[in-house]
């Protein structure tokens, strides 16, 4: 299964190298940064805080607002900073993928604002955004039933592959981002662009679940390390 090598030398079920950090922005209540191959995404979370404008607030629950945005310098050709149709849609689906995990009923009449800023785009930015946003939410101390972790799978040259690069994304026959709560094994987002047979779909889905769980472990290690590092620093003194 793994002998087919991709353009960047990866096996078909191999993720790109991933690094994650949390607590990197002082002003935000929670923040995270993720690098997945050449994709680099920064996320800031504010809240729960007062809703402005006030009429948007809901009496029984908190609301979630999300802005997914690609920096003008994130692609080879300059991207206009104006939100595109695509960015508006991704903002909505990222919000929905995360809102399912958040205990919104604990903070009525408030808002949780999520800013996903793509610094460099090379495929899988919505998934990297969801993964990082979930970390930033945890960093902000916002109650969630589980973390949310995401990864794309797709069909490229007739093979089901995981974690597509920008180049693979352009060439692929099908592309399927999946977001999931790894402990509860519940899917919060699934999209499919292109065509897969039902067998291919199952293969792709299982591969995505496997990848998400792997990324989930990295998320957990990142959160733990943040506090363990403070502990080590204290003991060193």
């Amino acid at each position, binding site marked *: 299964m793994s002998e087919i090598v991709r353009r960047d030398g990866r096996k078909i079920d191999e993720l790109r190298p991933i690094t994650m950090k949390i607590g990197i922005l002082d002003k935000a209540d929670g923040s995270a940064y993720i690098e997945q191959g050449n994709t680099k995404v920064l996320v800031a979370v504010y809240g729960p805080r007062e809703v402005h404008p006030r009429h948007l607030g809901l009496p029984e629950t908190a609301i979630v607002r999300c802005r997914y945005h690609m920096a003008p310098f994130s692609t080879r050709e300059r991207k206009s900073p104006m939100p595109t149709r695509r960015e508006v849609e991704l903002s909505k689906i990222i919000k929905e993928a995360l809102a399912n995990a958040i205990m919104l009923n604990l903070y009525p*009449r408030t808002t949780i604002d999520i800013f996903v800023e793509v610094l460099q785009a090379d495929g899988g930015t919505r998934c990297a955004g969801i993964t990082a946003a979930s970390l930033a939410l*945890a960093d902000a101390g*916002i109650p969630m039933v589980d973390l949310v972790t995401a990864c794309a799978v797709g069909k490229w040259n007739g093979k089901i592959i995981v974690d597509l690069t920008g180049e693979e994304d352009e060439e692929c026959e099908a592309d399927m981002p999946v977001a999931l709560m790894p402990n509860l094994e519940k899917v919060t987002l699934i999209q499919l662009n292109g065509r897969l047979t039902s067998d291919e779909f199952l293969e792709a889905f299982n591969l995505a679940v496997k990848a998400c769980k792997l990324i989930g472990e990295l998320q957990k290690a990142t959160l733990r390390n943040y506090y363990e590092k403070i502990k080590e620093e204290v003991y060193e003194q």
Partner: protein
Amino acid sequence: MAAAEERKIVLPGDLIAEGEGYEVGVNVYRDDGRIYSYVVGLASIVDGKVSVTALKGVYVPKRGDVVIGVVREVSITRWLVDINSPYQGILPAIDVFGKRFSADKVNLQDYLKVGDAIIARVASFDRTTDAILTIGGKGLGKIGRGRLEYITPTKIPRLIGKRGSMINLLKKESGCNITIGKNGVILIEGPNGESEELVAELIRKVDREAHVPGLTDRVAEILRSAMKRE
């Protein structure tokens, strides 16, 4: 489970306890007989009750809490107070001037201006209204001197310590008077600027190192060496 005994760090969705006989405390939920965490925090099981002390979080007002706030707006009949929370504080003029208060005779600005800090008690809060404050009571009212320091509200219990061990240590060794607002705002009144700064620095240390054991000892050591230098 062992996780809870040593106050291990748990993450959202982490399994803390399994089986019957456990009670659900704060920041945890039960699903299919298992108890999971909602937040990043330290897990503990006391008398079968499973809880997680969050390492970050916002202040949600509770009736009876003493809070410290800063006036951010003055209207004709009330002050709007920033209480370091998603919900704002409201101090009605009748709380200060009595039931016979009339808006055409009194200018609220003369009593409390924007930027003034107050110690107040939450008189009522029911999630449909903002937190109604009162400054009638001993130790409440306008703050005249000292400095304010902020701490993550969920770490207030750590700042107080077991039976007040941490806060009493800070007060005794520094000679400062320290008033803790449940909303994570702390008033430090000391004999001089240096001792106030020292306490503020130690409060920031408590905020940062709340999850590392032996914190009270480390704070005591810093306090004593700093006091010896003077």
